[in-house]
Protein backbone atom coordinates (compact mmCIF):
# COMPACT_ATOMS: atom_id res chain seq x y z
CA UNK A 1 0.00 0.00 0.00
CA UNK A 2 2.83 2.38 0.87
CA UNK A 3 4.35 2.39 -2.63
CA UNK A 4 0.90 2.91 -4.10
CA UNK A 5 0.26 5.99 -1.97
CA UNK A 6 3.70 7.37 -2.79
CA UNK A 7 3.07 6.79 -6.47
CA UNK A 8 -0.39 8.39 -6.42
CA UNK A 9 0.98 11.45 -4.64
CA UNK A 10 3.77 11.67 -7.18
CA UNK A 11 1.32 11.37 -10.08
CA UNK A 12 -0.94 14.15 -8.84
CA UNK A 13 2.06 16.32 -7.99
CA UNK A 14 3.39 15.89 -11.50
CA UNK A 15 0.04 16.76 -13.02
CA UNK A 16 -0.28 19.92 -10.96
CA UNK A 17 3.25 21.06 -11.79
CA UNK A 18 2.53 20.77 -15.50
CA UNK A 19 1.46 24.18 -16.75
CA UNK A 20 0.53 22.97 -20.17
CA UNK A 21 -1.82 20.47 -18.65
CA UNK A 22 -3.41 22.93 -16.24
CA UNK A 23 -3.96 25.58 -18.89
CA UNK A 24 -5.67 23.12 -21.22
CA UNK A 25 -7.81 21.40 -18.59
CA UNK A 26 -8.87 24.52 -16.74
CA UNK A 27 -8.71 26.93 -19.63
CA UNK A 28 -10.91 25.08 -22.08
CA UNK A 29 -14.07 24.67 -20.00
CA UNK A 30 -13.80 28.10 -18.37
CA UNK A 31 -13.20 29.95 -21.64
CA UNK A 32 -15.94 27.98 -23.40
CA UNK A 33 -18.29 28.76 -20.54
CA UNK A 34 -17.60 32.49 -20.83
CA UNK A 35 -17.99 32.39 -24.62
CA UNK A 36 -21.21 30.42 -24.61
CA UNK A 37 -22.60 32.52 -21.78
CA UNK A 38 -22.39 35.49 -24.14
CA UNK A 39 -25.62 37.41 -23.99
CA UNK A 40 -27.88 34.75 -22.49
CA UNK A 41 -30.28 36.68 -20.28
CA UNK A 42 -30.51 35.48 -16.66
CA UNK A 43 -33.99 34.00 -16.93
CA UNK A 44 -33.74 32.55 -20.43
CA UNK A 45 -35.00 28.98 -20.37
CA UNK A 46 -34.27 25.93 -22.49
CA UNK A 47 -37.47 24.11 -23.46
CA UNK A 48 -39.01 25.12 -20.14
CA UNK A 49 -36.67 23.04 -17.96
CA UNK A 50 -33.54 24.86 -16.83
CA UNK A 51 -32.05 28.23 -17.62
CA UNK A 52 -29.32 28.52 -20.21
CA UNK A 53 -26.94 29.71 -17.54
CA UNK A 54 -27.47 26.61 -15.40
CA UNK A 55 -27.37 24.36 -18.43
CA UNK A 56 -24.06 25.87 -19.56
CA UNK A 57 -22.51 25.58 -16.12
CA UNK A 58 -23.38 21.91 -15.73
CA UNK A 59 -22.35 21.18 -19.31
CA UNK A 60 -19.00 22.86 -18.83
CA UNK A 61 -18.45 20.92 -15.60
CA UNK A 62 -18.97 17.76 -17.66
CA UNK A 63 -16.73 19.06 -20.40
CA UNK A 64 -14.05 20.03 -17.89
CA UNK A 65 -14.13 16.59 -16.30
CA UNK A 66 -13.88 15.02 -19.75
CA UNK A 67 -10.96 17.20 -20.81
CA UNK A 68 -9.14 16.58 -17.52
CA UNK A 69 -9.56 12.82 -17.84
CA UNK A 70 -8.54 12.64 -21.46
CA UNK A 71 -5.45 14.77 -21.02
CA UNK A 72 -4.45 13.58 -17.52
CA UNK A 73 -4.87 9.90 -18.21
CA UNK A 74 -5.10 9.56 -21.97
CA UNK A 75 -2.46 11.74 -23.51
CA UNK A 76 0.04 11.35 -20.67
CA UNK A 77 -0.36 7.61 -20.28
CA UNK A 78 0.16 7.17 -23.98
CA UNK A 79 3.29 9.30 -23.82
CA UNK A 80 4.66 7.38 -20.86
CA UNK A 81 4.08 4.08 -22.53
CA UNK A 82 5.79 5.20 -25.71
CA UNK A 83 8.72 6.76 -23.88
CA UNK A 84 9.52 3.64 -21.86
CA UNK A 85 8.65 5.04 -18.44
CA UNK A 86 5.79 2.57 -18.04
CA UNK A 87 8.25 -0.19 -18.89
CA UNK A 88 10.73 1.07 -16.32
CA UNK A 89 7.98 1.01 -13.69
CA UNK A 90 7.18 -2.57 -14.58
CA UNK A 91 10.62 -3.67 -13.44
CA UNK A 92 10.09 -2.19 -9.97
CA UNK A 93 8.11 -3.85 -7.17
CA UNK A 94 5.18 -1.53 -7.90
CA UNK A 95 2.36 -3.93 -8.85
CA UNK A 96 1.35 -3.65 -12.50
CA UNK A 97 -2.32 -2.97 -11.76
CA UNK A 98 -1.44 -0.09 -9.46
CA UNK A 99 -0.09 1.90 -12.39
CA UNK A 100 -3.48 1.69 -14.07
CA UNK A 101 -5.44 2.32 -10.88
CA UNK A 102 -3.26 5.30 -10.04
CA UNK A 103 -3.92 6.80 -13.46
CA UNK A 104 -7.67 6.50 -12.88
CA UNK A 105 -7.39 7.92 -9.36
CA UNK A 106 -5.12 10.77 -10.46
CA UNK A 107 -7.45 11.83 -13.23
CA UNK A 108 -10.41 11.67 -10.84
CA UNK A 109 -8.50 13.91 -8.43
CA UNK A 110 -7.65 16.54 -11.03
CA UNK A 111 -11.27 16.66 -12.21
CA UNK A 112 -12.47 17.91 -8.86
CA UNK A 113 -10.80 21.36 -8.95
CA UNK A 114 -11.86 21.76 -12.59
CA UNK A 115 -15.50 21.12 -11.70
CA UNK A 116 -15.16 23.46 -8.72
CA UNK A 117 -13.66 26.23 -10.81
CA UNK A 118 -16.41 26.08 -13.42
CA UNK A 119 -18.94 26.31 -10.59
CA UNK A 120 -17.17 29.36 -9.18
CA UNK A 121 -17.33 30.98 -12.60
CA UNK A 122 -21.00 29.99 -12.64
CA UNK A 123 -21.58 31.93 -9.44
CA UNK A 124 -19.36 34.88 -10.37
CA UNK A 125 -20.26 35.39 -14.01
CA UNK A 126 -23.19 33.11 -14.72
CA UNK A 127 -25.35 34.35 -11.89
CA UNK A 128 -26.21 30.79 -10.83
CA UNK A 129 -27.64 30.69 -7.32
CA UNK A 130 -28.05 27.41 -5.49
CA UNK A 131 -28.28 26.43 -1.85
CA UNK A 132 -25.13 25.10 -0.17
CA UNK A 133 -26.50 21.59 0.00
CA UNK A 134 -27.40 21.63 -3.70
CA UNK A 135 -23.90 22.85 -4.57
CA UNK A 136 -22.38 19.98 -2.60
CA UNK A 137 -24.76 17.44 -4.10
CA UNK A 138 -24.15 18.70 -7.60
CA UNK A 139 -20.38 18.71 -7.19
CA UNK A 140 -20.32 15.25 -5.66
CA UNK A 141 -22.67 13.86 -8.27
CA UNK A 142 -20.77 15.30 -11.23
CA UNK A 143 -17.47 14.15 -9.78
CA UNK A 144 -18.38 10.57 -8.94
CA UNK A 145 -20.24 10.00 -12.19
CA UNK A 146 -17.23 11.22 -14.19
CA UNK A 147 -15.58 7.84 -13.55
CA UNK A 148 -16.31 6.60 -17.11
CA UNK A 149 -14.37 9.62 -18.43
CA UNK A 150 -11.36 8.58 -16.36
CA UNK A 151 -11.70 5.04 -17.68
CA UNK A 152 -11.96 6.35 -21.22
CA UNK A 153 -8.78 8.35 -20.70
CA UNK A 154 -6.85 5.31 -19.48
CA UNK A 155 -8.26 3.21 -22.29
CA UNK A 156 -7.15 5.75 -24.89
CA UNK A 157 -3.75 5.88 -23.22
CA UNK A 158 -3.42 2.14 -23.66
CA UNK A 159 -4.65 2.00 -27.24
CA UNK A 160 -3.11 5.01 -28.88
CA UNK A 161 0.53 5.77 -29.61
CA UNK A 162 1.95 9.03 -28.28
CA UNK A 163 2.22 10.57 -31.73
CA UNK A 164 -1.47 10.13 -32.44
CA UNK A 165 -2.66 10.73 -28.88
CA UNK A 166 -3.08 14.47 -29.21
CA UNK A 167 -5.39 14.46 -32.26
CA UNK A 168 -7.33 11.50 -30.89
CA UNK A 169 -7.81 13.12 -27.50
CA UNK A 170 -8.74 16.47 -28.99
CA UNK A 171 -11.11 14.85 -31.45
CA UNK A 172 -12.83 12.84 -28.72
CA UNK A 173 -13.15 15.91 -26.54
CA UNK A 174 -15.08 17.77 -29.22
CA UNK A 175 -17.07 14.81 -30.53
CA UNK A 176 -18.23 13.87 -27.04
CA UNK A 177 -18.72 17.54 -26.15
CA UNK A 178 -20.66 18.56 -29.24
CA UNK A 179 -22.69 15.41 -29.92
CA UNK A 180 -23.22 14.89 -26.20
CA UNK A 181 -25.04 18.21 -26.15
CA UNK A 182 -22.54 20.02 -23.93
CA UNK A 183 -22.18 23.00 -26.28
CA UNK A 184 -25.79 23.16 -27.43
CA UNK A 185 -28.79 21.48 -25.87
CA UNK A 186 -29.65 18.14 -27.44
CA UNK A 187 -33.27 19.30 -27.68
CA UNK A 188 -32.22 21.81 -30.35
CA UNK A 189 -30.57 19.12 -32.49
CA UNK A 190 -32.07 17.16 -35.40
CA UNK A 191 -33.83 13.94 -34.46
CA UNK A 192 -30.99 11.64 -35.59
CA UNK A 193 -28.41 13.48 -33.51
CA UNK A 194 -30.71 13.38 -30.50
CA UNK A 195 -30.80 9.61 -30.75
CA UNK A 196 -27.03 9.49 -31.13
CA UNK A 197 -26.55 11.73 -28.09
CA UNK A 198 -28.34 9.18 -25.93
CA UNK A 199 -25.55 6.69 -26.58
CA UNK A 200 -22.81 9.02 -25.34
CA UNK A 201 -21.56 9.17 -21.73
CA UNK A 202 -21.08 12.94 -21.96
CA UNK A 203 -24.81 13.46 -22.57
CA UNK A 204 -25.82 11.27 -19.64
CA UNK A 205 -23.26 12.82 -17.32
CA UNK A 206 -24.60 16.34 -17.87
CA UNK A 207 -28.12 14.99 -17.87
CA UNK A 208 -27.67 13.65 -14.32
CA UNK A 209 -26.47 17.05 -13.11
CA UNK A 210 -29.33 18.89 -14.81
CA UNK A 211 -31.79 16.32 -13.45
CA UNK A 212 -30.63 17.15 -9.94
CA UNK A 213 -31.26 20.87 -10.52
CA UNK A 214 -34.58 20.76 -12.34
CA UNK A 215 -35.95 18.41 -9.68
CA UNK A 216 -37.30 16.01 -12.23
CA UNK A 217 -35.48 13.13 -10.60
CA UNK A 218 -32.68 10.97 -11.96
CA UNK A 219 -33.27 9.16 -15.16
CA UNK A 220 -32.33 5.52 -14.62
CA UNK A 221 -31.11 5.51 -18.20
CA UNK A 222 -28.34 7.98 -17.27
CA UNK A 223 -27.04 5.73 -14.52
CA UNK A 224 -27.23 2.61 -16.65
CA UNK A 225 -25.37 4.10 -19.60
CA UNK A 226 -22.62 5.57 -17.40
CA UNK A 227 -22.23 2.29 -15.49
CA UNK A 228 -22.16 0.42 -18.78
CA UNK A 229 -19.36 2.60 -20.13
CA UNK A 230 -17.39 2.22 -16.90
CA UNK A 231 -17.66 -1.56 -16.94
CA UNK A 232 -17.00 -1.96 -20.65
CA UNK A 233 -13.96 0.33 -20.60
CA UNK A 234 -12.67 -1.29 -17.40
CA UNK A 235 -12.96 -4.70 -18.99
CA UNK A 236 -11.27 -3.52 -22.17
CA UNK A 237 -8.38 -2.10 -20.14
CA UNK A 238 -7.95 -5.33 -18.17
CA UNK A 239 -8.01 -7.45 -21.34
CA UNK A 240 -5.54 -5.18 -23.08
CA UNK A 241 -3.24 -5.25 -20.07
CA UNK A 242 -3.41 -9.04 -19.86
CA UNK A 243 -2.66 -9.54 -23.51
CA UNK A 244 0.35 -7.25 -23.28
CA UNK A 245 1.67 -9.16 -20.28
CA UNK A 246 1.35 -12.40 -22.21
CA UNK A 247 2.96 -11.07 -25.33
CA UNK A 248 5.63 -9.34 -23.33
CA UNK A 249 5.04 -5.79 -24.46
CA UNK A 250 5.30 -3.13 -21.84
Amino acid at each position, binding site marked *: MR*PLVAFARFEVGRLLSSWKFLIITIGFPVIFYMLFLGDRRPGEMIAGTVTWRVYLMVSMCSFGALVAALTAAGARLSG*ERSSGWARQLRV*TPLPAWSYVVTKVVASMLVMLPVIGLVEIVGVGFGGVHLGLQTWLELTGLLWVTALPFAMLGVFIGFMVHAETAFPVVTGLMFVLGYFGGLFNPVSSMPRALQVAAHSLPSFHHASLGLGLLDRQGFAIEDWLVLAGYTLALGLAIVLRHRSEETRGIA
Partner: protein
Amino acid sequence: MAVVSAETAGIRTTGLTKSYGSVHAVRGIDLVIAPGETVALLGPNGAGKTTTVDIFLGLARPDGGTVFVFGASPTEAVRSGWVGAMLQSGSLPDHLRVRELVTLLASYYPHPRRVDEVLDQTGTADIAGRWTNKLSGGQAQRVRFAAALASNADLLILDEPTAGIDVEGRREIWRAIRAVAERGKTVLFATHYLEEADANADRIVLIARGEIVADGPGSEIKAKVGSRTVKATLPGVELAELRALPGVLGAERHGEAVTLSCSDTDAALGALFGSFPAVRDVEVRGASLEEAFLELTGDEHGDQDAKVEASRPGNEEPG
Protein backbone atom coordinates in the same frame (compact mmCIF):
# COMPACT_ATOMS: atom_id res chain seq x y z
CA MET B 1 31.69 -22.09 -11.61
CA ALA B 2 30.18 -23.75 -8.59
CA VAL B 3 27.22 -26.07 -8.93
CA VAL B 4 24.15 -24.09 -8.00
CA SER B 5 20.68 -25.48 -7.44
CA ALA B 6 17.61 -23.88 -8.94
CA GLU B 7 16.56 -22.61 -5.53
CA THR B 8 19.77 -20.80 -4.76
CA ALA B 9 20.81 -19.64 -8.22
CA GLY B 10 20.57 -15.94 -8.91
CA ILE B 11 19.32 -16.74 -12.38
CA ARG B 12 18.76 -20.16 -13.86
CA THR B 13 17.42 -20.79 -17.34
CA THR B 14 17.02 -23.89 -19.44
CA GLY B 15 16.23 -23.98 -23.13
CA LEU B 16 14.99 -20.43 -23.28
CA THR B 17 13.46 -19.44 -26.61
CA LYS B 18 11.66 -16.33 -27.78
CA SER B 19 10.55 -15.23 -31.21
CA TYR B 20 8.99 -12.01 -32.40
CA GLY B 21 7.08 -13.02 -35.50
CA SER B 22 9.60 -14.72 -37.77
CA VAL B 23 12.56 -13.32 -35.86
CA HIS B 24 14.11 -15.84 -33.51
CA ALA B 25 15.58 -13.46 -30.97
CA VAL B 26 16.55 -16.13 -28.43
CA ARG B 27 16.97 -19.76 -29.37
CA GLY B 28 17.92 -22.07 -26.60
CA ILE B 29 19.73 -20.36 -23.75
CA ASP B 30 20.88 -22.39 -20.75
CA LEU B 31 22.50 -20.32 -18.09
CA VAL B 32 23.14 -20.48 -14.36
CA ILE B 33 24.34 -17.41 -12.53
CA ALA B 34 25.39 -17.91 -8.93
CA PRO B 35 24.59 -15.32 -6.26
CA GLY B 36 27.44 -12.85 -5.97
CA GLU B 37 28.68 -13.36 -9.50
CA THR B 38 29.24 -10.45 -11.87
CA VAL B 39 28.41 -11.64 -15.34
CA ALA B 40 28.64 -9.81 -18.64
CA LEU B 41 26.26 -10.71 -21.42
CA LEU B 42 28.44 -9.88 -24.39
CA GLY B 43 27.32 -9.84 -27.96
CA PRO B 44 26.89 -7.66 -31.00
CA ASN B 45 23.72 -5.65 -31.53
CA GLY B 46 20.90 -7.93 -32.49
CA ALA B 47 22.43 -10.92 -30.71
CA GLY B 48 19.47 -11.32 -28.37
CA LYS B 49 20.93 -9.64 -25.28
CA THR B 50 18.03 -7.31 -24.67
CA THR B 51 15.44 -10.01 -25.28
CA THR B 52 17.26 -12.25 -22.80
CA VAL B 53 17.39 -9.44 -20.25
CA ASP B 54 13.69 -8.69 -20.83
CA ILE B 55 12.87 -12.33 -20.10
CA PHE B 56 14.91 -12.22 -16.88
CA LEU B 57 12.92 -9.15 -15.86
CA GLY B 58 9.51 -10.55 -16.75
CA LEU B 59 9.04 -7.96 -19.50
CA ALA B 60 8.96 -10.68 -22.13
CA ARG B 61 7.50 -14.11 -21.69
CA PRO B 62 9.61 -16.89 -23.23
CA ASP B 63 8.01 -19.09 -25.89
CA GLY B 64 9.83 -22.11 -24.49
CA GLY B 65 12.13 -23.10 -21.65
CA THR B 66 12.19 -22.15 -18.00
CA VAL B 67 13.59 -19.21 -16.12
CA PHE B 68 14.01 -18.76 -12.37
CA VAL B 69 15.29 -15.72 -10.54
CA PHE B 70 16.26 -16.65 -6.97
CA GLY B 71 14.05 -19.72 -7.42
CA ALA B 72 10.97 -17.68 -8.33
CA SER B 73 9.46 -16.49 -11.58
CA PRO B 74 10.97 -13.26 -12.91
CA THR B 75 7.75 -11.39 -12.21
CA GLU B 76 7.65 -12.63 -8.60
CA ALA B 77 11.30 -11.73 -8.13
CA VAL B 78 10.71 -8.23 -9.48
CA ARG B 79 7.56 -7.75 -7.37
CA SER B 80 9.44 -8.89 -4.27
CA GLY B 81 12.05 -6.21 -4.81
CA TRP B 82 14.90 -8.67 -5.36
CA VAL B 83 15.81 -7.18 -8.71
CA GLY B 84 16.97 -3.70 -9.59
CA ALA B 85 17.05 -2.95 -13.29
CA MET B 86 18.22 -0.44 -15.79
CA LEU B 87 16.68 -0.92 -19.20
CA GLN B 88 18.43 -0.02 -22.40
CA SER B 89 16.07 2.72 -23.42
CA GLY B 90 13.34 4.73 -21.84
CA SER B 91 13.10 8.38 -21.08
CA LEU B 92 12.43 9.76 -17.65
CA PRO B 93 9.03 11.12 -16.65
CA ASP B 94 8.86 14.89 -16.87
CA HIS B 95 7.76 17.42 -14.25
CA LEU B 96 9.97 15.81 -11.70
CA ARG B 97 13.37 16.61 -10.27
CA VAL B 98 16.21 14.12 -10.37
CA ARG B 99 16.28 13.58 -6.61
CA GLU B 100 12.51 13.12 -6.48
CA LEU B 101 12.63 10.51 -9.20
CA VAL B 102 15.40 8.48 -7.59
CA THR B 103 13.69 8.77 -4.20
CA LEU B 104 10.36 7.66 -5.66
CA LEU B 105 11.79 4.60 -7.39
CA ALA B 106 13.91 3.68 -4.36
CA SER B 107 10.83 3.87 -2.15
CA TYR B 108 9.29 0.87 -3.92
CA TYR B 109 12.05 -1.43 -2.65
CA PRO B 110 12.10 -3.05 0.78
CA HIS B 111 15.64 -1.93 1.71
CA PRO B 112 16.64 0.98 -0.51
CA ARG B 113 19.99 2.71 -0.25
CA ARG B 114 20.35 6.26 0.96
CA VAL B 115 19.53 8.45 -2.00
CA ASP B 116 22.29 11.00 -1.31
CA GLU B 117 24.90 8.28 -1.20
CA VAL B 118 23.73 6.92 -4.54
CA LEU B 119 23.64 10.38 -6.12
CA ASP B 120 27.23 10.94 -5.00
CA GLN B 121 28.38 7.61 -6.29
CA THR B 122 26.82 8.05 -9.72
CA GLY B 123 27.96 11.62 -10.27
CA THR B 124 24.40 12.92 -10.20
CA ALA B 125 24.60 14.89 -6.94
CA ASP B 126 25.21 18.15 -8.78
CA ILE B 127 22.14 17.65 -11.00
CA ALA B 128 19.88 16.39 -8.18
CA GLY B 129 17.76 19.56 -8.31
CA ARG B 130 17.33 19.60 -12.09
CA TRP B 131 14.12 18.77 -13.91
CA THR B 132 14.38 15.36 -15.51
CA ASN B 133 13.39 16.69 -18.93
CA LYS B 134 16.26 19.19 -18.88
CA LEU B 135 19.04 16.59 -18.82
CA SER B 136 21.48 15.63 -21.54
CA GLY B 137 21.40 12.07 -22.81
CA GLY B 138 24.41 11.09 -20.73
CA GLN B 139 22.98 12.70 -17.59
CA ALA B 140 19.66 10.94 -18.06
CA GLN B 141 21.49 7.65 -18.45
CA ARG B 142 23.34 8.28 -15.18
CA VAL B 143 20.07 9.08 -13.43
CA ARG B 144 18.57 5.82 -14.67
CA PHE B 145 21.64 4.05 -13.39
CA ALA B 146 21.30 5.81 -10.02
CA ALA B 147 17.69 4.67 -9.79
CA ALA B 148 18.71 1.05 -10.38
CA LEU B 149 21.49 1.33 -7.82
CA ALA B 150 19.21 2.90 -5.20
CA SER B 151 17.06 -0.23 -5.20
CA ASN B 152 19.78 -2.04 -3.23
CA ALA B 153 18.33 -5.20 -4.74
CA ASP B 154 20.22 -8.50 -4.53
CA LEU B 155 20.34 -8.79 -8.30
CA LEU B 156 21.20 -5.85 -10.50
CA ILE B 157 20.39 -6.22 -14.20
CA LEU B 158 21.83 -3.50 -16.41
CA ASP B 159 21.26 -3.37 -20.15
CA GLU B 160 24.10 -1.41 -21.80
CA PRO B 161 24.63 0.76 -18.71
CA THR B 162 27.26 3.01 -20.29
CA ALA B 163 25.60 3.63 -23.65
CA GLY B 164 25.92 7.28 -24.59
CA ILE B 165 28.13 8.17 -21.63
CA ASP B 166 31.53 9.85 -21.90
CA VAL B 167 34.77 8.20 -20.85
CA GLU B 168 34.89 9.74 -17.39
CA GLY B 169 31.25 8.85 -16.78
CA ARG B 170 31.87 5.27 -17.84
CA ARG B 171 34.68 4.99 -15.33
CA GLU B 172 32.41 6.24 -12.53
CA ILE B 173 29.66 3.84 -13.49
CA TRP B 174 31.94 0.84 -13.55
CA ARG B 175 33.44 1.85 -10.22
CA ALA B 176 29.93 1.95 -8.76
CA ILE B 177 29.04 -1.41 -10.30
CA ARG B 178 32.17 -3.04 -8.88
CA ALA B 179 31.36 -1.56 -5.47
CA VAL B 180 27.94 -3.21 -5.65
CA ALA B 181 29.52 -6.52 -6.64
CA GLU B 182 31.97 -6.28 -3.75
CA ARG B 183 29.04 -6.11 -1.37
CA GLY B 184 28.04 -9.57 -2.51
CA LYS B 185 25.29 -8.57 -4.89
CA THR B 186 24.73 -10.40 -8.15
CA VAL B 187 25.27 -8.25 -11.20
CA LEU B 188 24.34 -9.04 -14.79
CA PHE B 189 25.10 -6.49 -17.45
CA ALA B 190 24.74 -6.54 -21.20
CA THR B 191 27.32 -4.88 -23.38
CA HIS B 192 28.78 -5.07 -26.84
CA TYR B 193 32.21 -3.96 -25.70
CA LEU B 194 34.66 -6.76 -25.02
CA GLU B 195 36.92 -4.46 -23.01
CA GLU B 196 34.10 -3.42 -20.67
CA ALA B 197 33.06 -7.01 -20.18
CA ASP B 198 36.59 -8.18 -19.53
CA ALA B 199 37.44 -5.38 -17.12
CA ASN B 200 34.30 -5.55 -15.01
CA ALA B 201 32.91 -9.08 -15.00
CA ASP B 202 34.04 -12.31 -13.32
CA ARG B 203 32.58 -14.16 -16.21
CA ILE B 204 31.57 -13.41 -19.76
CA VAL B 205 28.68 -15.08 -21.51
CA LEU B 206 29.05 -14.62 -25.23
CA ILE B 207 25.83 -14.52 -27.11
CA ALA B 208 25.30 -14.44 -30.85
CA ARG B 209 22.15 -14.97 -32.86
CA GLY B 210 20.21 -15.88 -29.77
CA GLU B 211 22.57 -18.57 -28.57
CA ILE B 212 25.40 -18.80 -26.09
CA VAL B 213 28.55 -19.36 -28.07
CA ALA B 214 31.05 -19.17 -25.21
CA ASP B 215 30.92 -18.87 -21.45
CA GLY B 216 33.90 -18.40 -19.16
CA PRO B 217 36.27 -16.01 -17.43
CA GLY B 218 37.29 -12.89 -19.31
CA SER B 219 40.79 -14.15 -20.17
CA GLU B 220 39.36 -17.24 -21.83
CA ILE B 221 36.82 -15.32 -23.86
CA LYS B 222 39.37 -12.74 -24.81
CA ALA B 223 41.64 -15.43 -26.19
CA LYS B 224 38.73 -16.58 -28.32
CA VAL B 225 37.25 -13.37 -29.55
CA GLY B 226 40.09 -10.98 -29.04
CA SER B 227 41.62 -12.72 -32.00
CA ARG B 228 43.34 -11.23 -34.99
CA THR B 229 42.89 -12.08 -38.58
CA VAL B 230 45.57 -13.04 -41.07
CA LYS B 231 44.70 -12.67 -44.74
CA ALA B 232 46.88 -14.10 -47.44
CA THR B 233 46.85 -15.30 -51.02
CA LEU B 234 47.49 -19.02 -51.03
CA PRO B 235 45.91 -21.01 -53.87
CA GLY B 236 45.13 -24.69 -53.64
CA VAL B 237 45.64 -25.27 -49.94
CA GLU B 238 43.43 -27.49 -47.79
CA LEU B 239 41.61 -25.45 -45.15
CA ALA B 240 42.08 -28.32 -42.71
CA GLU B 241 45.84 -27.92 -43.01
CA LEU B 242 45.56 -24.26 -42.20
CA ARG B 243 43.29 -24.92 -39.26
CA ALA B 244 45.88 -27.30 -37.86
CA LEU B 245 48.54 -24.59 -37.68
CA PRO B 246 49.53 -23.38 -34.22
CA GLY B 247 47.71 -20.22 -33.11
CA VAL B 248 44.99 -20.64 -35.75
CA LEU B 249 41.39 -20.94 -34.63
CA GLY B 250 39.72 -21.11 -38.00
CA ALA B 251 40.24 -20.73 -41.71
CA GLU B 252 38.10 -19.68 -44.64
CA ARG B 253 38.69 -19.38 -48.36
CA HIS B 254 37.53 -16.70 -50.78
CA GLY B 255 38.87 -17.66 -54.19
CA GLU B 256 42.64 -17.67 -53.93
CA ALA B 257 42.60 -15.75 -50.69
CA VAL B 258 42.41 -17.34 -47.28
CA THR B 259 41.44 -15.76 -44.00
CA LEU B 260 42.75 -17.19 -40.75
CA SER B 261 41.40 -16.15 -37.42
CA CYS B 262 44.12 -16.52 -34.88
CA SER B 263 44.53 -16.58 -31.15
CA ASP B 264 48.27 -16.05 -31.59
CA THR B 265 49.25 -14.33 -34.82
CA ASP B 266 53.00 -14.61 -34.15
CA ALA B 267 52.86 -18.38 -33.96
CA ALA B 268 50.44 -18.57 -36.85
CA LEU B 269 52.55 -16.38 -39.14
CA GLY B 270 55.71 -18.33 -38.34
CA ALA B 271 54.00 -21.60 -39.10
CA LEU B 272 52.31 -20.19 -42.19
CA PHE B 273 55.59 -19.04 -43.76
CA GLY B 274 57.31 -22.25 -42.64
CA SER B 275 54.73 -24.63 -44.08
CA PHE B 276 53.64 -22.67 -47.16
CA PRO B 277 56.53 -20.79 -48.75
CA ALA B 278 54.24 -19.83 -51.65
CA VAL B 279 52.17 -17.60 -49.42
CA ARG B 280 52.00 -13.94 -50.45
CA ASP B 281 50.08 -10.70 -49.78
CA VAL B 282 50.05 -11.43 -46.06
CA GLU B 283 48.03 -8.95 -44.05
CA VAL B 284 47.38 -8.96 -40.28
CA ARG B 285 44.57 -7.07 -38.65
CA GLY B 286 42.54 -7.08 -35.49
CA ALA B 287 39.26 -8.87 -35.83
CA SER B 288 36.19 -6.97 -34.80
CA LEU B 289 33.93 -8.50 -32.22
CA GLU B 290 31.45 -9.25 -34.97
CA GLU B 291 34.00 -11.15 -37.02
CA ALA B 292 35.07 -13.05 -33.94
CA PHE B 293 31.46 -14.02 -33.32
CA LEU B 294 31.01 -15.16 -36.86
CA GLU B 295 34.13 -17.25 -36.53
CA LEU B 296 32.96 -18.77 -33.28
CA THR B 297 29.56 -19.61 -34.62
CA GLY B 298 31.09 -20.99 -37.82
CA ASP B 299 28.78 -19.03 -40.06
CA GLU B 300 30.18 -16.43 -42.34
CA HIS B 301 26.93 -14.84 -43.36
CA GLY B 302 24.62 -13.56 -40.68
CA ASP B 303 21.17 -14.90 -41.46
CA GLN B 304 17.90 -13.03 -41.47
CA ASP B 305 17.06 -14.03 -37.94
CA ALA B 306 19.58 -11.83 -36.27
CA LYS B 307 21.32 -9.05 -38.01
CA VAL B 308 24.87 -8.42 -36.97
CA GLU B 309 25.89 -4.84 -37.26
CA ALA B 310 28.98 -2.86 -36.56
CA SER B 311 29.04 -1.88 -32.94
CA ARG B 312 29.52 1.75 -32.25
CA PRO B 313 29.29 3.74 -29.06
CA GLY B 314 25.84 4.99 -28.25
CA ASN B 315 24.15 2.63 -30.65
CA GLU B 316 20.78 1.92 -29.14
CA GLU B 317 19.51 -0.70 -31.53
CA PRO B 318 17.50 -3.25 -29.57
CA GLY B 319 19.77 -6.23 -28.94
